[in-house]
């Protein structure tokens, strides 16, 4: 819903045929409550990530989400990259960043003993991608009531609404179902989950509740984590921060991209101006 900024919408309108890429083209039978309208520092064309928020979000991810969700495209060094939660200008090479090193060391990876070839465990390094909570997808399903927790590397990019969707899903998970709605065992009602609840609804067929069922138990409660910066860890705060972190995880180059964009556009505008002046000069005395 909020993927496109105003400027984006203006350009998208030019491409009249791009209608399909815009939100709103959802299925007729699938329903979903309108996503919650929250704001992030990165909402605007020049908005960057808020580093303190990414650090809090990482903490929520690390202590809560990562128990079930993998994030196999993000390495510990990425946390210390420019624009990342633990970037520190004193360590231009993110592999030297002490926070990234410490966090990596706490993870354990399969390896072989270089003398005997026997399977051993080794501590992680900054070059390692985040460890998987489960050895394989079958194990992940078996531990989660048959549902596979999706990899979180691209979650914010893979859902319509991005961070807004994640925030809404997490805060809406476990909403008390309206009377007349039968929630299957091991599932939870979430009005923000796209779904079709008509076959679970015994009330007025014209008033089927919006939303769907989610297999994830409500993951967050007040004070689920303790933030290092003293921010009060309410449910909404935790959800807001982890949604921002997941947005970063799916688009870690956003800060760099937006900054470079300004430089490129300034260059292009000057260059275009010069070429326009050349064009006017060359064509000055020529009828056409």
């Amino acid at each position, binding site marked *: 819903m909020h993927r496109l900024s105003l*400027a*984006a919408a203006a350009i*998208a309108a030019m*491409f009249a045929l*791009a209608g399909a890429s815009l939100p709103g083209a959802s299925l007729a039978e699938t329903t979903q409550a309108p996503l919650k309208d929250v704001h992030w520092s990165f909402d605007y064309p020049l908005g960057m990530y808020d580093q303190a928020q990414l650090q809090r979000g990482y903490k929520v991810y690390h202590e809560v989400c990562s128990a079930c969700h993998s994030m196999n495209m993000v390495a510990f060094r990425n946390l210390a990259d420019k624009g990342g939660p633990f970037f520190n200008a004193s360590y231009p090479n993110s592999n030297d960043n002490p926070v990234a090193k410490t966090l990596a060391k706490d993870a354990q990876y399969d390896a072989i003993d270089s003398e005997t070839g026997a399977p051993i465990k080794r501590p992680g390094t900054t070059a390692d991608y985040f460890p998987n909570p489960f050895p394989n997808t079958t194990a992940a399903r078996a531990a989660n009531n048959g549902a596979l927790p999706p990899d979180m590397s691209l979650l914010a990019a893979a859902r319509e609404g991005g961070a807004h969707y994640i925030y809404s899903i997490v805060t809406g998970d476990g909403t008390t179902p309206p009377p007349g709605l039968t929630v299957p065992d091991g599932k939870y009602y979430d009005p923000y989950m796209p779904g079709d609840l008509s076959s679970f609804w015994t009330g007025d067929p014209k008033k089927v509740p919006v939303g769907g069922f989610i297999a994830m138990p409500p993951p967050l409660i007040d004070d689920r984590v303790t933030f290092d910066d003293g921010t009060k860890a309410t449910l909404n705060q935790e959800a807001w921060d982890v949604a921002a972190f997941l947005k970063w995880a799916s688009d870690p180059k956003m800060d760099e991209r937006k900054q470079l964009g300004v430089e*490129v*556009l300034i260059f292009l505008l000057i260059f275009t101006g010069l070429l326009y002046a050349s064009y006017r000069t060359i*064509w000055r005395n020529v*009828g*056409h």
Partner: protein
Amino acid sequence: MSEHVSTYEPKTGFTRWLDTRLPIVRFGADLMSFPTPRNLNYWYTFGGILAFCLVVQIVTGIILAMHYDASGAGAFLSVERGIMRDVNYGWLIRGIHANGASMFFLAVYLHILRGMYYGSYKAPREVLWLLGCVIYVLMMATAFMGYVLPWGQMSFWGAKVITSLFGAFPVIGGPLTALLWGGFSVDSPTLNRFFSLHYLLPFVIAAVVALHVWALHVPGNNNPTGVNVKSKTDTLPFHPYYTVKDLFAILVFVILFAVIVFYIPDAFEKVDNSIEANPLVTPAHIVPEWYLLPFYAILRAIPDKLTGVLGLAGALGVLFALPWLDTCKVRSMRYRPAARIFFFVWIFFSLVLGWCGSQEPQGTVFPGVPAGPTIIDYGPNSVTWLSRIATLYYFAYFLVITPILSRTEKTLPVPDSLYTPVLSHSAAMPAGAAAAPETKG
């Protein structure tokens, strides 16, 4: 303009020596001095813009191929983790390449519409037009296969839907599909052959572009009046007049391109394509990229699968036939008031088809109004029926309206020379081009 006399004079001993062996410097010089109608407007800059797009796609594509793993197991990771995160500026190169496809099609559509409006396909430029149509078809094939390479959900299912179309042909359908797939379903072998062809076809396009430019330089450019070049005063040397104008237009185009790449890089990407291809999970709503949507709508508008495939192919085929469907001697629609209206209606219905292609076939056109009684699978207030009406007009425009109109239309008087309207209509010229033309030579 085939009588364009070379004015190149080799100045050094080496260039004189080379000129009698491989006159490549002369070739370049003649291209630069090529007499070009002086009244070309900004719609004529899309040829240069398209050449720029092709170079950008080839250069960025070659770099992406260095980091890409064309296997079902590794493709998604090599794009989303390798290129987008770990390769230096990989996100930028892919952003340019992926959005470059959309920019390329935006430019080619405007280029085609310009050719249709000013009658650039008419004698003696039929071969030029046919080569352009070949380029367009090759572009669609290349873009489609390129979209499969990231191996996301929409890549996979798009490939599945489109390749399955070939199964509609009787007898050869089955073997043909198996050949395309390299097996019995879309899988790693399919991805490999698509990657191979996606790398090959741009060079085929480049070769056809060379022929297209050659075919342009035999009769010379058409122009907004459609009136032939009659004297030397009608033309200007291509350089510096059109090099500077084309470059300026390219830069304006690049600014729009840059805004997309840097600020809305995923504007054209479906969210499902950020999920790795999974043959067991079908996305709720499979749609092709925006530039293929009108043809997708035509395909779905026709109830029978084989007829639908033929309709899709025919929608492209009629473009090839256009020079022989339109027999009107007046080229430019500036002087064809009736043809102009039917043409704009055709553009409108093509956009409608694009919208229909993005919607569910059973979706309603007017929300809140019931679809109505079912007639051939769908009610009247359905996307499918709107597509059917638009498809009908699409074909009628080429096969009925254009042939009849080109024989019966009363055209407006055409100026004696392409330069006359320049003198009399200076107010109608683009803002940047109107500085007191009556005082000029």
